[in-house]
């Protein structure tokens, strides 16, 4: 490898690595038996998952009367968490698809983990509407199939659009992720020591040989999938926002919702990616692949989308005033100064005020502070959904039906349970699959080095 390194462009992999060393760095962790840290982590997360399964069993068998909903607030905690998880599931595809189209090469070391996070988060999100159906064993009724009830679905409902959007998003993201994994699975197959491992990897790597004819098509396929996933990712949260925007509830009925939700989703997704990757790079020794400049780039995305979200908060208030509609005005004043004002101001501080620290390079390069801010953004974005959903409902048109919402222990345990599912699957992912796209990182090893200079 060359010693000549550009001063203007920093290398994407901070240490000089050969191709074999890249494979070793990423794969040696998962070729060894698991360490104690991993065992402790998966024990905690799977215990939380188990608790989640038990409370889900309880609320399905008892009914969703176990939730804190009432006649006025008919949608709150469940849909908040649904939107929260779907939002988190947006960063992966953004990183893998949009940054691929924009030729942002730094994405290569983070896209695999971010995509895994996406798929897992969408799974967590899907739990909520399925429980909310009350009879989750009939969940397949949401798909249009010829049935003995002789009736079709109502294709005019945004809730049905959601079914199609989320399931398409899940399937396409999963396929995109798997296609990206194939060359790395083949690398694992060719390194496998035990016959069982080799057998399994031979099946899942589909006989990948590294043929240039295949690579040629493979690169086109990735480009096509990125091109399809980009509008898809925008459409998914647009449709999620339409669950609210197509209703007549003041505070929901707003044309700003689609772009506002998409920006919020990217914002919350990047925050979760930062939270996970800062831990991952430390625990898995990926510091040379997920470098401080990667973290910095993600901080900048967070800063930008955070301000878009802030602008949306402001625009909502402006429109409420400018519309001259008394109900609209009341809802927004109630949001900021009513009984849920504490939630509103937590949201504003976490999402708009705290990320402003990212203007400072010192903050962006201090990983501890970045980690703490990313947690604040995660919290803030959860509160954003809570504020939008609950504050718009709890003050009805009729003051006699005004009510408050507070979650029951069942709802809180379900939410913690989805975190259990999220981290259990994520820990399994980092344990059994390469968390960094090896073949893609190999293409950027010589980035910022003169092309013909070699030994």
């Amino acid at each position, binding site marked *: 490898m060359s010693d000549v390194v550009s001063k203007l462009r920093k290398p994407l992999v901070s240490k000089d690595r050969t191709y074999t060393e890249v494979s070793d760095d990423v794969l040696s962790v998962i070729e060894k038996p698991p360490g104690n840290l991993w065992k402790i982590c998966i024990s905690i997360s799977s215990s939380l998952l188990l608790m989640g399964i038990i409370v889900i069993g309880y609320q399905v068998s008892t009914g969703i009367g176990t939730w804190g909903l009432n006649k006025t607030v008919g949608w709150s905690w469940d849909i908040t968490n649904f939107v929260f998880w779907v939002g988190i599931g947006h960063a992966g595809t953004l990183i893998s698809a949009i940054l691929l189209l924009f030729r942002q090469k730094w994405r290569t070391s983070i896209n695999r983990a971010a995509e895994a996070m996406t798929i897992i988060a969408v799974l967590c999100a899907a739990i909520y509407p399925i429980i909310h159906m009350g009879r989750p064993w009939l969940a397949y009724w949401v798909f*249009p199939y010829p049935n003995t009830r002789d009736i079709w679905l109502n294709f005019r409902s945004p809730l049905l*659009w959601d079914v199609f959007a989320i399931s398409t998003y899940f399937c*396409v993201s999963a396929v995109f992720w798997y296609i990206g994994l194939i060359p790395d699975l083949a690398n694992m197959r060719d390194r496998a020591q035990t016959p069982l491992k080799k057998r399994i990897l031979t099946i899942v790597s589909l006989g*990948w*040989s590294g043929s240039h004819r*295949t690579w040629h098509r493979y690169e086109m396929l990735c480009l096509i999938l990125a091109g399809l996933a980009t509008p898809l990712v925008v*459409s998914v949260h647009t449709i999620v926002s339409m669950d609210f925007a197509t209703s007549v509830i003041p505070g929901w009925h707003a044309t700003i919702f689609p772009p506002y939700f998409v920006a919020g989703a990217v914002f919350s997704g990047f925050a979760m990616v930062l939270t996970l990757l800062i831990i991952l790079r430390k625990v898995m020794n990926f510091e040379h692949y997920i470098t401080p400049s990667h973290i910095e780039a993600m901080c900048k995305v967070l800063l930008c989308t955070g301000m878009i979200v802030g602008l949306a908060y402001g625009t909502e208030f402006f429109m409420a005033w400018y519309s001259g509609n008394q109900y609209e005005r009341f809802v927004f004043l109630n949001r900021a100064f009513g009984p849920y004002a504490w939630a509103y101001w937590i949201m504003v501080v976490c999402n708009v005020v705290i990320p402003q620290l990212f203007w400072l390079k010192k903050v962006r390069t201090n990983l501890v502070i970045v980690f703490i801010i990313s947690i604040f953004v995660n919290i803030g974005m959860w509160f954003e959904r809570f504020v939008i959903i609950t504050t718009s409902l709890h003050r009805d048109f009729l003051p006699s039906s005004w009510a408050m919402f507070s979650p029951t222990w069942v709802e809180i345990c379900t939410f913690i349970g989805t975190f259990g599912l999220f981290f259990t699957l994520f820990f399994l992912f980092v344990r059994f699959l390469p968390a960094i796209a090896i*073949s893609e990182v190999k293409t950027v090893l010589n980035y910022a080095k003169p092309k013909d200079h070699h030994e």
Partner: protein
Amino acid sequence: MSKKYLLGVFHDEHDMIRAAQELRKSDISIFDIYTPFPVHGLDQYLEIKPTRLPVVTFIAGTAGLVLALLFQYWVSVIDWPINVGGKPFNSFAAFIPVAFEIMVLFGAFITVFAFLLRSKLVPMFSGSIMHTGATQDKFVIALEVKDVSFDAQLISKTLDSFGASEVSVREV
């Protein structure tokens, strides 16, 4: 039916590219080149034509879009029309989101299947694996040993002179 291949294994992709260039200059056709990551600029040595995958995507996506629109129209207008809040049976604008999603779903999945079929990537099949190093750090040029006109010795020498670390024959 097994075929014989002559493999030239390189540690450095630039050496491999130069060797491929030289082979093409002497009019020897290269069967394939195996690399751990996509190496650009090899297309002309392998005489690869542009892939037709985008055409597949376009047709599949269009089919998905049209099918989804027709299906929603048939369901809502012809088979069992239901009056939902006085909305027209043919609520065309409301059919667009689902049609869009089905377009993406068809486009993505059919393109992926077309890719897998065309590249002969199927579970359990490992016949085309020439060299196990090619998924990690080796760059392998494979030449088909066809008939008597194939001068293995001369080609081996050429590969060697460009820095091949290993020249071997493999039957697949």
